[in-house]
Every structure is written in structure tokens, then in C-alpha cells.
């Protein structure tokens, strides 16, 4: 029992060439964010009265939420269906979801004209049960809270027995320590409740994001306008969950120079063709029922986007992952997972931007430089925070050798400097 897989903080330097580039992107994004707050949306974005929503909604919010689905799908697989071997990827997925949603909210705040009112949906006097957006908003708020609660045990685990404030503050050590022990005990008991809640909440708002555009049937291209759009959003979110986990696992193992968990990842990738197949079946069945096939052969911008979305994003990765050839290789897995992610990203862009055809627009919307910079900045920031988090907290599972310096404690002691 000298080698044991368990989550532990990654031992690496935070700064590398990559992080420096990301920092630069983040800094530009941050400046853009501040600029947007000062001058308003008009000067920063290409939005107008015809196109009130741009990439900040389509990518930062809609795609952000979809790609954070790894959190709840992995939790459902490992904790609810008790496929215990997947526990190794629960924590990275959870962290991705946590950060994903956090940045969704940050991105949303940039898009909201009156961001200081973002808390209004919480007030019962402003509840608006007919609004799909209200449901999405409230669900996301609650789910974000649930995610933080789910993450608490990791924080507790990191600091329990190691609270050592220096000097004057040392009087607090005992108090905080006992608080952590109580928290640990309580959380252990209730954690399963929150896991289920997380799954339910995810199902609700992932689907409701698909309901958003159903309110504008006359402005939506028939290839995407569907009354069962919520179901398709949910299915695509479920389908993209594991590919997202695979994608970031391979990326982080490369970045941290760890051995990729190929066996585990290819095992989890088995589910993806099935989930994609169900999604594809529903999507094509919906096209058939609505007699929307003719729109596919009109070879307009919309029909080509639809073909790319389905072809590159669904059919090809589905075939790739169905056979074991690509599934067993890191490169194959990474390519297929990237394609599924690309497919979902493109789907969200298509639904919110490409399919949306305002009645009187004179020009079509294309994001401004600022919009792209801010979105890029948010993504860079997310990656940086993720890197910091896995360095600080025991998130990524890795082979742990018997500690050499420490006195036989099973837990790792990490020197945490600040």
C-alpha cells in the first residue's frame, strides 16, 4: 500500500509561461470590465435595440452554464449511482462547476445594464413566476450556494488540524479548529442532500435556459425554434458533462506534468456516445416532426451553422468515442471531447445569436473587440483561479506515496505560504 490515489494539492509553481500569458489576457479583460462599468454597454458592445443579447449571454452565460454541467453529471454518476471509481474526478468537476458558475455570474453582471439590481429576483415582492429567466436566475443562485457548500468539505479537509495563525492571532486557533471539526461532522451528514439538490437544480435551470428563446417563436430560425428546446438543452448539457471533465483532466495533467488518467477517462467516455445519441435522436426527431428539414438544404448561413453544430459537435465525436481506438488514446479522447464542447458552444451561440432574427435589423450582430476581450479575460481568469485552487486545495487525485518527512499521518502536509 505504498501508492494510493487520493486528492491532494498539486505541488507546482503557480507561475509559468502559460500563466503569464493568461495573466496578460485577464488583465486586459479586467480593464475592459472596468471600462464597461464606466462608459456603459453602448460604447463597449455592438448591441442595439434589434440585438439586445450578444456573446456575453451566448458564451459567458449560456455556454458557461452548459460547460459547468460536468459538476452535476459526475456527482450523479459517482455519488448517486455509486460508480465509486469515478470519485477521483468528482472534485475537479466540482471545482470546474463552482468556478464556471462564479464566472457566469461575473459575466452576467457585465451584461446587466443595472447590475446593482441583480439581487432583485430574491425579493418575494418581485417574484415573477411566469418568467423563465426568473427561474434560471433563482436556480443559478441556489445552485451556486449548493456548489460552495459542496466544496466546503475540501476547504475543511485542507485546514483541519493545521490552523496555525502566528502571534496574537494564535488565540483563534483553537476556536477555528473546533469550528472546523463541527463543520466537518455536520457536512459529512448532510452532504448527500446537497448533492441530490445540486443535480435537481442543474436539471431545472439547464433545461430552462433552453426555454428562454421559446418566447420568441416568430424571431427564431425554424432549425432551432422548438417547443422541446428545454429538453434538448438539458440533454446536450448532460452529454457535454463528461467530455468537459475529460478535456480539463487531460489539460491539467499536461499542465501539471502528471500522468493522465487515461483508463478512467476512457471508461467515463463510454457514456458519451450514448448521451450524444439520445440528444441527436431527439434533435433530428424534432426536426422531422416540425417539418424543418427543408430549412437545412437552403444552404444559408443558418443551415451551414446547423450542419457544423450537428456534424462536428455531435455525429463525429459520437462515432469516434463509440469505438475503442480513439477512446483509449489520450489524443483521441482529447479531440473527441473538444469537439463535443465545441458543438455545445456552437449550439448555444446558434440558439442565442444565429437563430435570432430580429424583425427590423439592418445589420447582423458581430461581437465588438471589447466583448471578445472581456470574454477571453473571463476564461483566462477562470483558468488561473482553477490553477490556484488546485495548488492550494486537495482537488486533483494523484498517486500519493507514503510521506517521508511527516510522522506517518495519512494526510499530506503542504507548506502553505502567503
Amino acid at each position, binding site marked *: 500500500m505504498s501508492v494510493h490515489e487520493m486528492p491532494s494539492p498539486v505541488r507546482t509553481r503557480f507561475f509559468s509561461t502559460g500563466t503569464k500569458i493568461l495573466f496578460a489576457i485577464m488583465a486586459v479583460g479586467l480593464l475592459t470590465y472596468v471600462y464597461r462599468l464606466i462608459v456603459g454597454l453602448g460604447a463597449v458592445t455592438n448591441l442595439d435595440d434589434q440585438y439586445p443579447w450578444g456573446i456575453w449571454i451566448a458564451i459567458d452565460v449560456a455556454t458557461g452554464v452548459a460547460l459547468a454541467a460536468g459538476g452535476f453529471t459526475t456527482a450523479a454518476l459517482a455519488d448517486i449511482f455509486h460508480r465509486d471509481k469515478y470519485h477521483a474526478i468528482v472534485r475537479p468537476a466540482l471545482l470546474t462547476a463552482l468556478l464556471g458558475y462564479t464566472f457566469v455570474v461575473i459575466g452576467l453582471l457585465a451584461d446587466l445594464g443595472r447590475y446593482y439590481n441583480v439581487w432583485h429576483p430574491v425579493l418575494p415582492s418581485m417574484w415573477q413566476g411566469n418568467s423563465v429567466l426568473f427561474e434560471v436566475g433563482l436556480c443559478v443562485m441556489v445552485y451556486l450556494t449548493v456548489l460552495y457548500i459542496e466544496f466546503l468539505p475540501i476547504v475543511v479537509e485542507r485546514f483541519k488540524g493545521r490552523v496555525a495563525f502566528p502571534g496574537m492571532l494564535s488565540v483563534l486557533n483553537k476556536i477555528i479548529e473546533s469550528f472546523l471539526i463541527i463543520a466537518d461532522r455536520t457536512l459529512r451528514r448532510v452532504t448527500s442532500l446537497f448533492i441530490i439538490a445540486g443535480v435537481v437544480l442543474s436539471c431545472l435551470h439547464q433545461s430552462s435556459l433552453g426555454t428562454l428563446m*421559446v418566447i420568441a417563436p416568430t424571431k427564431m430560425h425554424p432549425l432551432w425554434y422548438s417547443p422541446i428546446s428545454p429538453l434538448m438543452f438539458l440533454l446536450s448539457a448532460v452529454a457535454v458533462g463528461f467530455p468537459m471533465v475529460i478535456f480539463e483532466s487531460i489539460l491539467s495533467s499536461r499542465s501539471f506534468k502528471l500522468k493522465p488518467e487515461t483508463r478512467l477517462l476512457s471508461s467515463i467516455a463510454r457514456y458519451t456516445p450514448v448521451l450524444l445519441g439520445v440528444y441527436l435522436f431527439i434533435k433530428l426527431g424534432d426536426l422531422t416532426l416540425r417539418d424543418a428539414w427543408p430549412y437545412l438544404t437552403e444552404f444559408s448561413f443558418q443551415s451551414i451553422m446547423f450542419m457544423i453544430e450537428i456534424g462536428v459537435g455531435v455525429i463525429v465525436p459520437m462515432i469516434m468515442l463509440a469505438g475503442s481506438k480513439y477512446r483509449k488514446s489520450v489524443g483521441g479522447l482529447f479531440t473527441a471531447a473538444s469537439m463535443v464542447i465545441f458543438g455545445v458552444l456552437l449550439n448555444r451561440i446558434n440558439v442565442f445569436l444565429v437563430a435570432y432574427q430580429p424583425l427590423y435589423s439592418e445589420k447582423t450582430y458581430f461581437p465588438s473587440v471589447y466583448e471578445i476581450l472581456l470574454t477571453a479575460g473571463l476564461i483566462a481568469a477562470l483558468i488561473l483561479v482553477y490553477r490556484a485552487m488546485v495548488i492550494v486545495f486537495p482537488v486533483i487525485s494523484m498517486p500519493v506515496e507514503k510521506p517521508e518527512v511527516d510522522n506517518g499521518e495519512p494526510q499530506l502536509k503542504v507548506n502553505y505560504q502567503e
Partner: protein
Amino acid sequence: MGIKRRDFLKLAGVASTSLLPDLAAAEACAPDFDHSFGVLVDTTVCIGCRKCEWACDQQNNLSELKKHDFEDKTILKSHRRPSKDAFTVVNSFTDGAASDKISYMKVQCMHCNDPACVSACIVGALQKCPHGVVTYDAWKCIGCRYCMVACPFQVPAYEYDNALDPQVKKCTFCMERIHDGQPPACVEICPAEALTFGKRRQLIDLAHHKIKKNPERYYDHVYGEYEVGGTSWMYLASTEFVNTELPQLPADSMPDNTEKIQHGIFKSFIPPLALYGLLGLIMHSLRNDKNQQESE
């Protein structure tokens, strides 16, 4: 002690009733669209003088434009849309047939009977009032612009250039004036009385009467009588409405589908709770399976 306790309960009661959405008030808003206010726009009478635009501008303090700025008639051809600076605009259109007869059409918020914007609004900043007006409360608004996405007439405009206090801008139906028993400013100024203000039912009757009396003058369709579940502003024209700027819309109200889905998912919270229960059951039973397997 007892009294205090009772007081507290009373307070709690007051607090909860004041915080919760007033269901009784919502019931009072039950649709009676026959008696809600509306305006009938007779485009065959409209002369395209743009006085309504000027009156709207004055009433709502929209721009720095002077009266004579509205005398420019060349702009009528340019298919303008209502904007943050102009809640209503008049555009010209031809009847599409061989004759090049020019008519004019005033465009503004239609104040739908079942407005998509109201259904979409996340915080209830947009409300449909019993007298027909769709109101906007900037204080509630979070600026998400979902109303603009939802509107089937593409009417709400937004103050994109306002960094701190941007608002959704659209025709207010001159609510204050209606409360004072006056017609909206645009209706009052219209020299040809192409705009008729009144109860919606009366206006529909009037429209059909006009069509019946002058069948060669009007195309037999009252736009807004049935479109998207009916609108407060309705139109008569000499030609099919395809030739005008008004969109072709079904008779179903726009929020029908989303509200059905929404209320289906949240029917007394049963579906989410059922899912919760089901997942809990699976979690529990599979754990027991595993424990048994391990113990065996």
C-alpha cells in the same frame, strides 16, 4: 408576553403579506380586454404629418428637437423604429400593388393583451395593468433586456449609452394622462383624428363598422384584434398588412408556450420534488446494494 407574541405574529403576517406578491391584486388584473383602453389607428386617414411624434416628444421630454424639426417629411421613407428618443415614429408604406399610393403608419408599443415582455421580465418591472397599459418600473429592472428579445413587435428600446441608470424605453400610453381622463398626447394632437382612443371592444366594433361601410377603402382585417392574443393598439389599412411594417403574427399569445413549460415543470413543485425523491431513492438503494456486496 402573550400580547407581545400576538403582536409579533401580526407583524410577521403583515410582513409576509406585504412581501409576497399580492395574489388578490393579480386576480383583480384578470383580463377584461373589452373594457381596457386602446387606440385604433386608421392608416387610410393618416396624413403623415408627424404631429404625434412631436406630441410624444413633448409629453415624455425625449429629445431636444423643436417643433419644426418634425416638419421634415422625407424621413418618413426611412423606416425608422421606436427608440429611446422617440417612443413613436411614423413611416410610409405603399400598398404593394401596381398603384404607388403612399400611406403612413404610426409605430409604437402595441400594449398587448398578453405581453411577451411582461411574461419574460425577471422581476416584474413590466406589468400589464387592467386598463390596458403595459407599464415599466425602472426601479425594479435589472437591465437584462430579455423583454427586448421577447417582444414580437421589436419595440422596447434601451439606453445603451447610459452607464449607470440605463432604462428600457417604450410608449407609456401616457398613463398619467389616462388617469386624468385624457387621451394619450399623440391621439389628442392628431389633426386628422386617424387615432381613436377608447375602450377596446368599442374600437373593434368601430373598425368593423368602418370596413363594412367602406369595403373598397379598407382591407378587411383589423390588425391587433387577434394577433398575439390581441393588442391594445389596433390598425386599419387599405392593403394587406404584409405590405406594412407590422409583422405577420399568429393569434396565439407569445408567452403561451414558455408559460406552459414553466408551469409544467413547477406544477406545485411536484416534478422537482419527485426528481429529488427519485434520485434520493436511487442513491440510497444502490448504496445498500454496495454495502451488501461488500459485506458478502
